[in-house]
């Protein structure tokens, strides 16, 4: 809806006016159409932002978890932002295995220490979401297939993660993501 589609009729009348008159008249039309455009664009903002997470969803974006009952070698699945989080209490052997790997040879080079918190090196907390296409890897549950490297195994497309949940084999490009978390006490973790 631009003013340039105005009829010859209007243009003819406008052309007959003095040059200054033409500019002033054009200015009012352009301003009016411009104001309508600005109003239209601003109206889009709520229509777009209504699709973003609502307040109740955002409020659930942190999870607190008591880990005191998890024995070494065990893992639990917690829920964080409606997705699984694996909380694993690593055994000394698993830590040793993870540290024995040459970091330089990894697809996504990270040491175990970089993936855990100081003072809580036995707690490996990662998202339970395969970095390939988002399936939930096996290995957190009792008796599940832990893959060739003793960590996690994603059955969808065969990605193998090691005891530090780092990608070792298969199509996944990255290690299992470590969410933001902190130990609020010795046994309570706040994720998010």
């Amino acid at each position, binding site marked *: 809806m631009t003013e340039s589609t105005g009829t010859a009729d*209007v243009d003819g009348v406008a052309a007959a006016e003095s040059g200054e008159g033409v500019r002033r008249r054009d200015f009012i039309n352009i301003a*009016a*159409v411009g*104001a309508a455009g600005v*109003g239209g664009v601003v109206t889009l903002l709520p229509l777009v932002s209504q699709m973003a997470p609502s*307040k109740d969803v955002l409020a659930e974006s942190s999870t607190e978890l008591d880990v005191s009952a998890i024995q070494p070698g065990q893992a639990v699945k917690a829920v964080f932002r409606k997705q699984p989080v694996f909380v694993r209490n690593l055994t000394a052997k698993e830590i040793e295995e993870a540290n024995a790997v040459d970091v330089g040879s990894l697809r996504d080079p990270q040491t175990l220490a970089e993936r855990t918190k100081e003072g809580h090196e036995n707690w490996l907390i990662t998202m339970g979401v395969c970095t390939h296409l988002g399936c939930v890897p096996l290995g957190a549950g009792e008796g599940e297939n832990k893959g060739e490297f003793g960590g996690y195994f994603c059955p969808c497309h065969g990605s193998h993660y090691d005891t530090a949940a780092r990608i070792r084999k298969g199509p996944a490009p990255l290690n299992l993501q470590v969410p933001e978390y902190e130990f609020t006490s010795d046994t309570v973790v706040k994720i998010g």
Partner: protein
Amino acid sequence: MTRLIGILVGLFFTAAVLWAFVSGAATVISEGELKPATAEHHFHKLPHEPSGGFSFNGAFGKYDKQQLQRGFQVYKEVCSACHSLRHVAFRDLEQLGYNEAEVKAIAAGFQVPGVDPNTGEATTRAGMPTDYFPKPYPNDIAARAANNNAIPPDLSLMTKARHEGSAYVYSLLTGYQDAPAELVKEFPGSAPGPGLHYNPYFANLNLAMAPPLTATDQVSYGDGTKATVDQMAQDVAAFLTWTAEPTLDKRKQTGWPVLGFLLFATVLAYLAKQQVWADKKGKKG
């Protein structure tokens, strides 16, 4: 032909409705009054606001967060014993000016339904900010049994679920009185029965809820405000206005710029219209 049929149909409808009118008029004449007198017509009072009104009245009115906090205290210490607030989550209380830690502490002070992680049995646990205010009764039957057969309604939307809702809550809480002798004499059926309390602001005049706010300093306000019955009623009415319409402040804050812009744009549109039409007014085109 259409017109003839139309006239006949029109006369038919007119006759039917006038027949109804005549029979209605006959009833009115035989009874000698337009509508039967009821106790509600005579004694029911329309709600009124506290003197000075509410802070959120009018197009510029805003919530007074201090007052909302006091009202919340009244709800928590008095109303919450019987009334739920099921649409409100503890996290919403941050809008009253509480910080995250305070909200957490308030939530933890409430027991909400939970599940025992070892046995799976229903149990209760301390509330978290994401929880909603817990219901005082597990279900309607329990609520009825505990309250003389009347279910205490949920209060989240109370001020929007009544005409002049904020004033209604205030008037109701301060409106308890003895039933007028006139009422007892003329409408014995409308006198408060056992377990009922006379309140002219309540639709049918008799309310199962006993006066909840009865004495000065029934709650002790932290901000030094004197907790008179009138003050507590105002505060809790304000709080319940917030629970029903938490977006009131934002709504008005959004409204003014929108109206300002529309005024500006409409004036521009008028000028543009005048300009476009300039050559069509009063001369041949």
